[in-house]
């Protein structure tokens, strides 16, 4: 067999082994984070501080995006539905689209871009500037003190942000359909109320956002902690957080949707 082919196969083998090894390391790190979460849950002020950075500071992009997505849904929905004389169902279309899919997925993508990348960059830079090592030398576990509070803040923030996204989206749809176009307000809200099921639509949407919150924040803290302590290393880790999170969100969304909405409703 030509030497180049052998080297190529070896390269693929090395990459596969490295990826599996890293996945195992990430799983161990995730378990360690959960095991060391006790201290940060007892000192909830640590999580509250991080809630501000991951949650509150992400609100602007979430609210503005939610509003525009809802407005676009209202416009597009009306354009299609009015062809069938069903324009009063635009409220249902906006609400179901947002609560089931767009709310969790788009909010998660925005959360990964805004908060996930910030978490990775912050932890990565703390590593590069020896802050994590200094903490360890002070007998303070960096996983318990730095990683766990950020992880739980992300897990708590994500469903709340997605709820805000969907609420703003519904409001955007209302603005376009009712206020601008003139769809009957009573029909808009009453159809939405009768067609959106709390357990089937809203609870499933909340479950999705919780899963996305765990996935994004776990990826973000791991990439930050595992970053090479150089400028390139931190930059690469931040990019990986956004790319990996986006792919994981879309993959998980398909899997969760397949389980939750198997042709029902």
């Amino acid at each position, binding site marked *: 067999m030509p030497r180049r082919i052998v080297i190529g196969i070896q390269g693929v083998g090395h990459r596969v082994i490295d990826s599996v090894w890293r996945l195992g390391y990430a799983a161990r790190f995730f378990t360690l984070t959960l095991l060391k979460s006790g201290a940060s849950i007892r000192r909830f002020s640590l999580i509250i501080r991080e809630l501000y950075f991951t949650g509150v500071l992400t609100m602007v992009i979430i609210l503005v995006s939610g509003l525009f997505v809802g407005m676009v849904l209202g416009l597009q929905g009306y354009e299609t539905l009015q062809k069938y004389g069903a324009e009063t169902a635009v409220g249902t279309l906006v609400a179901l689209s947002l609560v089931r899919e767009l709310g969790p997925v788009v909010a998660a993508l925005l959360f990964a871009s805004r908060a996930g990348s910030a978490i990775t960059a*912050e932890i990565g*830079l*703390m590593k590069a*500037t*020896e*802050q994590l*090592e*200094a*903490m*360890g*030398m*002070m*007998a*303070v*576990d960096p996983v318990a*003190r730095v990683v766990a509070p950020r992880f739980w803040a992300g897990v708590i923030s994500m469903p709340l942000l997605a709820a805000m996204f969907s609420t703003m989206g519904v409001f955007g749809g209302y603005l376009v359909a009712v206020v601008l176009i003139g769809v009957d307000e009573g029909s808009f809200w009453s159809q939405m109320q009768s067609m959106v099921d709390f357990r089937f639509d809203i609870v499933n949407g909340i479950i999705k956002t919780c899963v996305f919150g765990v996935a994004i924040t776990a990826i973000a803290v791991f990439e930050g902690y595992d970053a090479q302590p150089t400028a390139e290393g931190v930059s690469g880790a931040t990019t990986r957080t956004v790319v990996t999170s986006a792919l994981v969100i879309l993959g998980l969304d398909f899997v969760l949707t397949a389980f939750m909405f198997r042709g029902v409703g």
Partner: protein
Amino acid sequence: MTTKALVEIKDLNFSYDERAILKGINMTMPRGKVIAIMGSSGCGKTTLLRLIGGAVTPSSGHVKVDSQVVHELSRNELFLLRRKMSMLFQFGALFTDLSVFDNVAFQMREHTNLPESVIRDLVLMKLHSVGLRGAHNLMPAELSGGMARRIALARSIALDPMLIMFDEPFAGLDPISLSVIGNLIRRLTEALGMTSILVTHDVHESLKIVDYVYFISEGVITAHGTPAEVRESASPFVHQFVHSEVNGPVPFHYPAETYATDLNLESSVA
């Protein structure tokens, strides 16, 4: 060096993968003294500090701190030991999201149940000892390199440790800051009765403040003695190092093929 030793290093070997960094190191560091570990960049000085602090495990041999073999301690025991020791990193490693005050208060809040009023007084006392009480409200980004190093020093003495390790405390400082840091290390070591280990290649400043010096070259101790003995040393390495000479046992060139080979001159001549 007759005082009871705080740090004892015995037949210590350490390798990264296959590359030997430290080879058969033996050291004794008595309590209450300032000890310098010198050597050219990359000779394993910082690795030695990391071994003393338990951040890495030796390939063979051992490091004893306060009569405990560091690498044999459980994680909890190691953390208990680390509460009595401290490390000042090369560029301070201050927590950039915390103010100067909160940086110094960090360990007190993590490891003690002291009331906030007592912590406030203690932090101001520590900052006063390094001359930066007035900077307690600043953020690390607002500090000069010398100030950051002094704040890091105040943070490292927050819990009155028995041992402080300084990793290149003089690197990148102007002459005034350099003298200030040097004097603070000496003064605080004496005032707090602690032991200080300095890893440095700043010969002139460190020889003014230390009690004993170890020289490391290529992973082994090549010389050791008091500052006076070191200045008079006949060892070619120590002489080159102390007198900052270009020529000597430490080569200028990194190991490589011959110059002619690299430039393909041999083949063209042939």
